[in-house]
């Protein structure tokens, strides 16, 4: 069992949890992910590592509640325990001094980009971060990104805070100005797709971190497969980071929709029964 030490709700459906998992924390590196399972009946959910503290033995995750499991997880707070917490998985980000790196995070994608930005900054890069959200109260970790960036640009789709535009607008401007050596774009599939479309004409390498459906997270099942440069790759062992210009995002997004029907059934049942453990039995 793994203990939840801290939990903060950022909005109705976005929350942060700090989990006690010393072995995972000890090995964790920027860019990696974990797989967790709440209880015996639970599914295995992959989540990118948002932060880790090797000395304290903790790993931080930031989650958007979208279905039954992530809603259930949101009801758990400090002192509660979850059954399994496995990781770190995936290949860590390659960190070196590239020069100037733009880190564009959309929605909860800001969380996983944070440790990457931090390591890039430590390695001597100039880090320009774009922190994007649909609206102001969904905006995440602006302060933390400030701490590890030379410059932070904030955007909201509705203009409730920062610039009123999509994340791609400042990204395009930065590419046009030139001098950008590497771009990281992490967020929903659609956001990463358009970030890559934006940067492609400028030939600036753009890395994305893919959030495909997974089961084991160790290369055993192939649930996470995605086409990159026309070849099938497993996100959990070959990634999660890939050259975004090579990724088939339409396929990725179609594959993410595979269980919508079942997710809805599970979610509806869960919402109906909330707080009533006997309801399902």
């Amino acid at each position: 069992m793994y203990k939840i030490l801290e939990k903060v709700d950022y909005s109705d459906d976005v929350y942060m949890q700090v989990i006690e998992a010393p072995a995972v924390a000890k090995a964790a590196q920027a860019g990696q992910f974990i797989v967790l399972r709440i209880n015996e009946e639970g599914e295995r959910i992959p989540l990118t590592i948002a932060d880790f503290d090797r000395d304290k033995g903790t790993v931080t995750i930031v989650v958007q509640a979208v279905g039954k499991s992530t809603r259930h997880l949101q009801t758990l707070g400090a002192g509660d325990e979850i059954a399994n917490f496995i990781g770190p998985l995936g290949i860590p980000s390659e960190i070196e001094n590239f020069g100037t790196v733009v880190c564009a995070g959309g929605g909860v994608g800001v969380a996983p980009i944070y440790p990457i930005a931090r390591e890039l900054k430590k390695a001597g890069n100039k880090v320009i971060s774009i922190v994007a959200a649909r609206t102001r109260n969904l905006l995440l970790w602006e302060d933390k990104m400030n701490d590890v960036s030379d410059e932070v640009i904030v955007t909201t789709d509705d203009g409730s805070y920062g610039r009123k535009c999509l994340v791609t607008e400042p990204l395009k401007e930065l590419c046009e100005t030139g001098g950008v050596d590497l771009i990281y774009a992490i967020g929903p599939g659609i956001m990463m797709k358009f970030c890559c479309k934006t940067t492609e004409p400028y030939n600036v390498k753009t890395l994305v971190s893919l959030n495909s459906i997974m089961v084991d997270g160790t290369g055993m099942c192939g649930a996470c497969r995605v086409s990159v440069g026309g070849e099938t790759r497993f996100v959990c062992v070959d990634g999660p980071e890939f050259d975004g210009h090579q990724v088939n995002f339409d396929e990725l997004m179609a594959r993410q929709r595979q269980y919508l029907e079942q997710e809805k059934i599970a979610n509806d049942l869960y919402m109906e029964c909330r707080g009533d453990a006997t309801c399902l039995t």
Partner: protein
Amino acid sequence: MSDVDKNKGEKKVKKTSIPRTPIPEQSPKERAKNFEEVALGYTRDQALIEASRCLQCKKPKCVAGCPVGIDIPAFIQALADDDPAAAIAKLKETTSFPAVCGRVCPQEDQCEKLCILGRKHEPVAIGRLERYAADREAQNGEGARPEKAPKKGKHVGVVGSGPAGVTAAGELAKMGYGVTIYEALHKPGGVLVYGIPEFRLPKTIVQRECEYVESLGVEIKLDYVIGRTMTIDQMLENGHDAVFLANGAGLPSFLNIPGENFNGVYSANEFLTRANLMKAYRFPDYDTPIKVGKRVAVIGGGNVAMDAARTALRLGAEVHLIYRRSMEELPARKEEVHHAQEEGIEFHLLTNPVRIKGDQDGWVEEIEVIKMELGEPDAGGRRRPIPIEGSETMIPIDTVIVAVGTRANPLLTKSTKGLELNKWGNIVADEHTLQTSKEGVFAGGDIVTGAATVILAMGAGKIAARSIGRYLQGQPLLTPEEEEELKAAAEKAGVAAR
């Protein structure tokens, strides 16, 4: 014993006239709708009759057919004497998990194939008797605990809790070593728990076997991915005096045909893991979803393909099994093929998939297949299937399950320096000692041999434990007598080859 000898001539006549005792099974109609075990096991009377059929050969051929050399006549004699406890003790001298092997070993290609009775009649049902002995032990509660050697003060790390890892761990614990198994998944058992379905191998049996090795003092650390959570070098630096790699062959192969990434295409590993390990067949009581649709195509002809097909059937689908050679070459156990046919799985033999067609939302719609004919035998002696031009047809389908084998998973090996691999990525280990190119590291099971069988993996676990024990005592990995034996065997084989 002497009584038996005296009566031998008389009994022999009788023995051959007793037909092989069928094992009670759930009817095909009934079992197609549930996940309970298909075969129900012998009753005491049935076991007594079947055991009495054994001729108790002086030079038993069956033993030579067993990859681990179980003393088959001896355990069967104990059963014939109505002493299952003695039978299980005999079995456990050589196999750690008779309840598992009795259910999943391909006996028709091993021990039972060589049974003398099988020449003119039907062979003794060795596997079913093995299962009976093990099940009786389970029913009667705790079996006898083996004696443990005094603590040796050294510690071994085992990677993977499949049959190879668990067997080695149990043996090493009995020898007095401290043992920790590191398992990537959240449940121990390897393929036995994530791959082989409940209806063929109930998970409570696997759990019982794992609990048994824990009772010997073995620690099983779940959620631990070696190569990620900790490397092999870190294991060796942090208190493990030797390491046994038994991480299996878990990387699914795909066909590399167009359309394989459409929604509704599964690897058999994914499909079976969802169903078995994650219990998706009990969705929504369990959270993991699985999609079968109305019509399922399973590609392949091995045990894995049969398991996937029969699982899909139980989830309510009409199942089409597509295999590129003929029934004769079908590699799955005969019993499983028979069961699959009985349950209503449609076999498309000499048929090969060409491409998968999807709809505009990215879902599987049809699979295009081509008819095959068998040509000249290939290097392995199997006749190579050749496509018949112009014989393409489309089969409308909702789900495709690809069961065309697995390869070595590189996650662990890639993260380890100094570990020699062959060209397929399998770990190279000495055939007789299972020592690898890396000091203190041994390897066995599917990761060395490629996908094989449970009993071979267990055999490897035994050999590894023996080698590791000797390694930790600073002894040569093979005794002079063993060296001599191997030499003699090699020479004999050489003569035969010439």
